[in-house]
């Protein structure tokens, strides 16, 4: 669609002009970056690698009320978000936007999830292409890239003194109009394209995913998982920080007579995740849980929705305290010899 630009020092003005949107942008709390609602446009900076906590929390908050009720009453009051309220994620990295388009499959599958979908509908995604990919990024290997347009409404490129904006959808056009962006010239478009190509070359890590979805189920009982699971702590870092991980727990909470049913992020790396009340656990050790995490992303999800549930953002690699490196696992899985697993 349209090509636009705005000067670097006009960033605050652009954000100020987006009054009809609730705008979220990366913000620092100490050394940690997270998407926060913009309260002061003057404080927003787009000079960042990527946020620690992915912006999935904007569509799928870590804790979310499903409905409220009074204890003793049978009336429930749903807390479904209002899609007519316009929201914008400003400066989202292409990998995180790509993640939304993957997770959309699940939340739209058969039973539509109104909580996620209403938020998605009302939100405009304005991306920011990566000029300098991080050390553990591997987005091109899983269908993305530093300047991938997947899932985005508009994509910005940092060209030094100005941001070049390529609007990709009607929502993106609307953003350009609301922000009053000036038209960009050919030179800017070329510079952006060049930056995208250069960035792609700078992505240091990669994996050839061909054959992995078909192979993983054959490694069900394979001891190679233990090379990794033996040092797994069973914490939730890899999954909570993963932009495509979407599992949740549902709990009822009451405070005096006010109660709610809420859902909160959950992770297959916790033992209680799959623990039956009887005490039986189908995934009793970290070996099975590690296998489930990797298999879900690279085999089960593609089997169902035809797309790998990984966007190559590198967060699980960057933040794993014990260096369980998903690329290393996938690499080893390709070398491992398939074994017929035992069933009944």
């Amino acid at each position: 669609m349209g090509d636009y630009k705005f000067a670097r020092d006009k960033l605050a003005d652009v954000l100020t002009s987006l009054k009809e949107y609730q705008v979220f942008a990366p913000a620092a709390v100490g050394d940690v970056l997270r998407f926060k609602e913009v309260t002061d446009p003057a404080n927003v900076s787009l000079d960042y690698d990527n946020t620690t906590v992915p912006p999935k929390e904007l569509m799928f908050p870590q804790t979310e009320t499903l409905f409220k009720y009074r204890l003793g009453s049978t009336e429930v009051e749903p807390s479904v978000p209002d899609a007519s309220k316009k929201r914008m994620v400003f400066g989202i990295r292409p990998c995180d936007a790509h993640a939304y388009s993957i997770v959309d499959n699940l939340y739209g599958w058969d039973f539509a999830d109104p909580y996620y979908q209403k938020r998605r509908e009302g939100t405009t995604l304005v991306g920011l292409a990566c000029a300098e990919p991080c050390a553990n990024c591997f987005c091109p290997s899983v269908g993305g890239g530093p300047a991938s347009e997947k899932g985005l409404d508009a994509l910005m490129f940092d060209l030094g003194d100005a941001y070049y904006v390529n609007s990709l959808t009607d929502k993106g056009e609307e953003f350009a109009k609301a922000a009053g962006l000036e038209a960009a010239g050919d030179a800017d478009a070329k510079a952006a394209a060049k930056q995208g190509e250069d960035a792609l070359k700078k992505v240091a890590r990669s994996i050839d995913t061909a054959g992995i979805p078909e192979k993983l189920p054959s490694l069900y009982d394979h001891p190679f998982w233990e090379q990794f699971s033996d040092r797994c702590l069973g914490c939730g870092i890899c999954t909570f920080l993963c932009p495509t991980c979407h599992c949740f727990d549902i709990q009822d909470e009451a405070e005096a007579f006010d109660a709610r049913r809420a859902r909160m992020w959950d992770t297959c790396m916790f033992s209680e995740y799959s623990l039956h009340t009887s005490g039986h656990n189908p995934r009793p050790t970290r070996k099975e849980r590690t296998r489930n995490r990797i298999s879900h992303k690279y085999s089960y999800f593609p089997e169902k929705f035809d797309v790998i549930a990984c966007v190559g953002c590198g967060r699980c690699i960057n933040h794993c305290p014990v260096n369980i490196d998903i690329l290393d696992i996938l690499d080893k899985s390709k070398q491992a010899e398939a074994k017929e697993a035992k069933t009944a």
Partner: protein
Amino acid sequence: MMDESNPYLPYIVNIEDARYETPGDRAIKTFRVTFADDKVWDTWSHSPGNCAMVGRLGVGEAMFCISSSPTEEGYLRFSIMKMGKVTRALHELETGDTMTVRGPLGNSFPMEEWEGKNIVTVGGGIGQAPLRPVINYVRANRDKYGELQVIYGSRTSEDLCFQDELGEFMTESGTSCHLSVDVEEEKWPHFVGFVPNLLMEVSPSPENAIAVTCGPPIMIKFVTQNLLKLGFAPEQIYTTLEERMKCGIGKCGRCNVGHLYVCKDGPVFSYETLKKIPEAFA
């Protein structure tokens, strides 16, 4: 069907009858419920094998099979064993109380496909609950199905569910019933031993037959092995699985066995499907 716009909202149901099937720490209580809002019945339809999230506001919900056949009209039945947080809270409820139901969820037994065949059900303990709708569906459509063999065992004779109905099966024509208990007890006229052994004792013919089994995971495993020994083909063997569940609609993730969600793609699977998925027997 459920509220299309929000599958997380439960229906309120009134308990018309609550009674204990079995006593003890792990008592089984059967609830007969009907919707507080009569209009729900207009859109409600379920089949044998379907499940529902049953719960209590303020405590939570858990997945249970609907243990009544759709041929039993005007109510739903749930047989619930007292185990954890939710089931304990449900067991406190009595006739006249309300609980919540969200469903019907999951797939169901291909009852139409099975028409004209002999049906063998192999149940253990509370595993008889998902088999009950199959049995009652067959009994209500007697002319459409062949012989019905009910094979059922539990730890002790006290732990047998649906005792009032078991007697009927023994006398009804076209239906036979074989019971067992795990350990020897006084005045027990039937088989003593585990259900897989009872199955071998009864030794149903695989010819034009379908076997449906449900029980503890270990029992399912051995029953499946024995059915194969008896000559049943993998596509003749059906089971229902259970996993921990939260959403019941294929979103929350935890109930997967391999790439299948038990809540959505299941709980009913043929062994033909499951034999490719080792996790189903984990």
